[in-house]
């Protein structure tokens, strides 16, 4: 038995090694290096002296702007996830349970197609739609009999709209996959036993679809906490977030160690969020 084990490892290694070596060099070593780096005063190969320090983390806890920014990024991520759920779940339900055949396939495809267009450009197109004198404003004023002024550009709602637009397909996709797996006869059985539509939804459909909802929420929440280009483009004066400050440390201010520390704190937060989500996911898969 042990011999066969060894044999199996022997056969697996040549096939596994290239992929995992690659991941080590490009993901795991950099992440470890970043942790190391976040305790340094400066870059090691610029020729300037450097030493170890806790100053970069102290900055986070001493100066309230960093954790206030982190809180506002978390709030943004929560709001975006919430709207994606409100829009995505009913859409996935309609898709999985109300539509059939080619119609369903076509609409499903149409929903995931925008993924294959550039995310940046989609965000920028919103700028043309949302601003005063932009397309939304002009169109609404042409249709409506009274004069209104729509100017969402450079505001918090603009950032939320842009991010929801970018991420809602994830929610539709994950919810659709779990909803589709729910046997229709289960729903029919519940209905024939006298359960109302609302009861069926609450007692049968939502609990069974929960893993899809959680998976979708995690897929949306995590990248949104670290988003920086969407707030920059759409947010105007409200566009300063945790992600934009990290970006600044790397491309402008040139304080890489502080940037690394801020990144690492973000990573810790993300891991906590994922850990909270994982029991639900594990229960669903087992």
């Amino acid at each position, binding site marked *: 038995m042990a011999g066969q084990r060894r044999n199996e490892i022997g056969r697996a290694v040549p096939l596994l090694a290239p992929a995992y070596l690659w991941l080590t060099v490009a993901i795991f070593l950099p992440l470890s290096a970043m942790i190391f780096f976040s305790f340094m005063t400066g870059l090691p190969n610029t020729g300037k002296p450097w030493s170890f320090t806790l100053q970069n983390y102290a900055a986070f806890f001493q100066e309230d702007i960093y954790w*206030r920014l982190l809180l506002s990024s978390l709030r943004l991520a929560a709001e975006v996830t919430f709207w994606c759920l409100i829009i995505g779940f009913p859409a996935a339900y309609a898709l999985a349970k109300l539509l059939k055949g080619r119609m369903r396939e076509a609409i499903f495809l149409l929903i995931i197609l925008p993924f294959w267009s550039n995310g940046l450009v989609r965000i920028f197109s919103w700028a043309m739609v949302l601003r005063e*004198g932009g397309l939304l404003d002009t169109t609404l004023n042409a249709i409506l009999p009274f004069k209104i002024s729509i100017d969402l550009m450079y505001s918090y709602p603009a950032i939320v709209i842009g991010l929801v637009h970018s991420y809602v397909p994830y929610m539709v996709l994950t919810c659709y996959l779990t909803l589709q797996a729910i046997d229709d006869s289960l729903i029919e059985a519940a209905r024939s036993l006298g359960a109302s539509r609302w009861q069926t939804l609450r007692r049968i459909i939502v609990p069974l679809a929960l893993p899809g909802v959680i998976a979708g929420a995690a897929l949306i929440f995590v990248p949104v906490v670290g988003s920086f280009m969407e707030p920059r483009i759409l947010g*105007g004066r409200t566009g300063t977030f945790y992600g934009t400050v990290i970006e600044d440390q790397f*491309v*402008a201010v040139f304080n890489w160690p502080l940037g690394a520390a801020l990144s690492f704190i973000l990573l810790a937060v993300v891991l906590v969020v994922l850990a909270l989500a994982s029991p639900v996911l594990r229960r669903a898969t087992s």
Partner: protein
Amino acid sequence: MNRLRLIFAASTILASAFGAHAADLHVLNWKGYGADEPWAVEAFEKATGNKVINDFFNSEQEMLTKIRTNPGLYDVVMINAAFNDQATAENLIQPIDTSKIANYGDISAEKAQSPMLVKDGKVYGVPWVWGLTALAINDKSFDTPPTSINVMWDVKHKGRVVIRDDAVEAIQFGAIATGQNINDIKDLDTVKAKLTSLMPQIKTFWSAENDFNQLIASNQIDVGTYWSGSADRAKTQFKLPVSLVIPQEGAVAWLDAWSIPVGAKNVAGAEAFINFMIEPSFYTEWVTKVGAPVSANTKAVAALPEDSFNRKVMGDPEVAKRIQFQAPITDAQREAYLKAWQELKVNVK
């Protein structure tokens, strides 16, 4: 005389022969700021055989980081004279041999010899143009142009005001609004308080010239801080309803200069490029076709029509009294400004 002409002809032939293996010339500058004008690039390439490759930054901080993280890549970089000290101290730029730059002698002595650019007798920057960070107004929003900087705080324009997203510029603007010397801010707290009261007025921060122009084109703003050359460009090149206002309280003046980074591979090309940039013929074409700040080359300014903005207004002694030239700032000041500005931005949320 004939011999001179012969030498000249020979050198042109030589130059064109070298042009066959065109050398790359990497230029780092603001976008839409003269050096990337297609007609200028074409003329320069034809004359010298260098191939111009432009790269852009949108803050002085980013410019410095680009030189730091790309050693040896850039051949010539446009650096605001107030940042020259920092670049020299970090060993990012090298001394320039001005004898290779024929037009250097025509630069006004006071600018060429500025202590910001000349250190220990070595020249680290060749003055190119100077201008103002003043106010620009949307002509559609004003019957008579405002005269005071306080128009930015006027509630009539609430939500229709912009300011550039730059710590140093914002703090120095606040210094002018509170009647302080921009290079020696005694009372930073007053500046912060003044800027805090400005925040509710603001629509957004702009970072590139194009942002400002977009906002004017779609009539979203009334007034904002803007650069004099950019306001001129908005008017001349893009036909936008923009006018520059130099408030009675004063304005920030800056001097932009060309420098050569340490490790530049095409120093000869860089010298030729700098010479071309301060040439009167390039400057007059830039002003008439596109719009530009004031050249540091006295001959270039003299070549402009007498009633042009860059001669009449910018050369006006009355204006000269009101403006304050940016001087280098210390690391401690820069950090304090950065922190103050970051806090202001976080507090608006």
